């Protein structure tokens, strides 16, 4: 009996030592790679974010470091957010010329639709992009720019043009078309964009007054 216990103990020490070596080597390898690649990765990610922002805020509008201007907005019903969301302020010189907001349309056919919306200082949409959604493929996913240009019809609109009562899909008597058989998704998007505009018009001063060098979020 004692022999077996001793043999087991010996063996377990041996195996754990071997495993230890592999763990140390593996971890060291990872640590090394991580260290080497980290700057590159950060750069790529920022470039990626910027590419996305570029789609809603034309680069010709501003000259500041847009990524550095990121701030967090508190949760808001109009933005459809339950958690703080990001906002970027574009400036030309010191003058704020536009903002980019994250918003959520909570009433999509299959849950939340995440949007990125660019709004000029005077309340015109410069662009809208869907960043994440779970709408039925082939039915509701035409809101995705990769699938169809549908989302482009928001560009240039504001709370005044079209008038408020036309901020609906065509089927409900509004200005925005929707594909037959799939009106829930566009309804949700139209409503979310309109709400985001309203949010902007109410909070405009606070948003634009934000310090030029806002506290960058982590």
């Amino acid at each position, binding site marked *: 009996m004692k022999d*077996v*216990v001793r*043999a*087991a*103990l010996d*063996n*377990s*020490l*041996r*195996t*754990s*030592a*071997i*495993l*230890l070596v*592999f*763990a*140390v080597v*593996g*971890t*060291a390898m*990872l*640590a090394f790679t991580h260290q080497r690649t980290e700057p590159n990765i950060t750069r790529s990610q920022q470039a990626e974010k910027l590419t996305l922002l570029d789609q809603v805020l034309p680069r010709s509008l501003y000259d500041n470091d847009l990524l550095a201007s990121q701030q967090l907005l508190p949760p808001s019903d109009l933005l459809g957010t339950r958690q703080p969301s990001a906002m970027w302020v574009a400036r030309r010189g010191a003058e704020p010329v536009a903002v980019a907001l994250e918003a959520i349309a909570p009433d999509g056919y299959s849950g939340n639709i995440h949007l990125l919306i660019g709004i000029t200082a005077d309340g015109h949409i410069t662009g809208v992009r869907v960043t994440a959604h779970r709408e039925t493929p082939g039915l509701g996913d035409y809101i995705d720019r990769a699938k169809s240009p549908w989302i482009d019809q928001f560009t240039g609109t504001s709370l005044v043009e079209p008038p408020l009562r036309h901020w609906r899909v065509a089927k409900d008597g509004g200005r925005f078309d929707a594909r037959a058989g799939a009106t829930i998704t566009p309804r949700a998007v139209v409503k979310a964009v309109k709400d985001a505009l309203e949010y902007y018009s109410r909070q405009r001063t606070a948003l634009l007054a934000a310090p030029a060098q806002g506290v960058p979020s982590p």
Partner: protein
Amino acid sequence: MLAAIGVMVLLAVAIGLVLGWSAVRFKVEGNPLAEKVDAILPQTQCGQCGYPGCRPYADAIASGEADINRCVPGGEDVVKKLADLLGVDPKPLDGALGEPKPKSVAFIDEQACIGCTLCIQACPVDAIVGAAKQMHTVIAKECTGCELCVAPCPVNCISMVPIEEDLPHWKWKHPVVMMKTVRTETRA
């Protein structure tokens, strides 16, 4: 970084200890697989598989050194069962080892028997009785039909008699159902 290494080290040591301990402590004695294989084999002990008996062949299968298609008396049925047990594809019997034959028992022509006891020594299941210089006879009930006694007989008095179907041994056949149309092969 240090934390990551720490976690990995701790994990490694813990897992290593547990596995190393259990490997010795919970070692399974014997080979349960070989026993399961042995339970499937027909126990004729005929040695046609190239092993000195069913159990050695079972051990060889369990350790992976022998193929599952070497049991001639067991036929396709045994191959299929072994394939099921081991989770491998069934394959046809190794034709080089012999063709399956109808079940037979050995029969000693008692007129010709000289009582040399060679067949008694050859019988793997002690199914032949008799003594030196005395006539031998086969206990048909215990004979497995392995044919090992046929070759040693110096006077060729042992023959294999197929077991004929009679009333008590009759079996119902699988109902033949012609649901599919049979495509007649016209190849010569």
